[in-house]
């Protein structure tokens, strides 16, 4: 469970988030809003990648300011552009990067990678250079690289960007299959239609909060 208490953040004096107070405990939450409305900034606050200039973000009761590492262990994040988050040269190495950082031995990490690759039918890609994967495959890799760390919450920033229909369905299938709490930032209103809750950002504030259908409608009217 994540709690935001009076959170504000500005970049170079320009406010990106203003005084947000929220409790997030639904299993599937959608986040929508205009370009620059603060969605990605919001996501980065949730796992302590960004510390709020005012207010507190609590993950399971502990402030991200007090223990950032714990927050990042509990809250995984899949970023907007896959090219910006593939860290290691090959699929296998990229997947074991997170577990190794968390203290897994090389053998343990290899076991985790094995299991994951088998589960998602990806054994063939093990040694493939990550930058030669197709757009859809890269997106899936970044997703798996976070799933392998077994966080309790996963934040996705634009999971369907420039995917074709098939990869779209595959990624959506993976999202739906996750047992974790998932928070999905998107411009695709259909994607979050069946979610438990939606948040609408507008100029750094939460301008809508509730049933995805009505929040989406509000957004469409304002645009």
């Amino acid at each position, binding site marked *: 469970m994540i709690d935001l208490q009076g959170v504000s953040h500005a970049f170079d004096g320009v406010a990106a988030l203003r005084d947000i107070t929220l409790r997030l405990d639904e299993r599937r939450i959608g986040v929508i809003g205009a370009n620059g409305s603060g969605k990605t900034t919001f996501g980065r606050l949730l796992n302590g*990648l*960004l*510390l709020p200039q005012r207010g507190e973000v609590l993950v399971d009761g502990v402030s991200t300011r007090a223990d*950032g590492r714990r927050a990042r262990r509990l809250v995984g994040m899949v970023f907007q552009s896959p090219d910006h988050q593939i860290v290691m040269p090959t699929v296998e190495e990229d997947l074991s990067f997170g577990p190794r950082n968390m203290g897994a031995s090389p053998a343990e990490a290899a076991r985790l990678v094995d299991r994951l690759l088998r589960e998602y039918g990806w054994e063939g890609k093990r040694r493939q250079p990550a930058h030669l994967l197709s757009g859809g495959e890269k997106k899936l890799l970044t997703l798996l690289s976070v799933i392998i760390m077994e966080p309790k919450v996963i934040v996705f920033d634009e999971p369907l960007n420039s995917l074709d229909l098939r990869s779209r369905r595959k990624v959506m299938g993976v999202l739906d299959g996750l047992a974790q709490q998932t928070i999905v930032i998107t411009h695709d209103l259909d994607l979050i239609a069946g979610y438990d809750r939606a948040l609408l950002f507008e100029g750094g504030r939460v301008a809508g909060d509730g049933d995805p259908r009505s929040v989406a409608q509000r957004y469409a009217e304002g645009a």
Partner: protein
Amino acid sequence: MNAGLRDLVYIALFAAVTAVLGLAPKIDVGPVPISAQSMGPMLAGAILGARAGASSQAVFLALVAAGLPLLSGGRGGLGVFGTPSVGYLIAFPIAAFVIGALVERVWSRLTFPTAFAITLLGGVGVIHLLGVIGWALTLYLGGATTFAAAVTAAVIGDLVFLPGDMAKAFLAASAAMFVKRGYPLIGR
């Protein structure tokens, strides 16, 4: 908050930039090739500043030493540091540091002419000075000549690089000014 990590990534980026410059065609005129790679330290210093700039070039050299074929023409390995190139190579991080330190000093009022002067001083001055010393020493220790003859040979050999290196300093200074306007890092 990831300022420290960010610097690490920038360091890797400019080590890679120097490596990629090695893919540009090189010209063999003697034991030391004419190549685009000395633009690496110029860019790293002028864009990242002294510390990160120098680190990026040190990482590049470490990878070359470890045997990766990152020097122009796909060369690498410890052996390279026994060739007349040695002085030029060792000068890479030092040049980046000098350029970075000077650029940091004048950052807020940096104009193209100043930037060009700085890349010339660090990227041509420092690199050629150390380059000639290294070249002369390898010749001398190779046992072929007297020390004076070795220095003369190295200086003459070095002169070939001057026109190309001035062009590189010019390009590096304009690229640095471009980045300063479009995505300033040093003044953060």
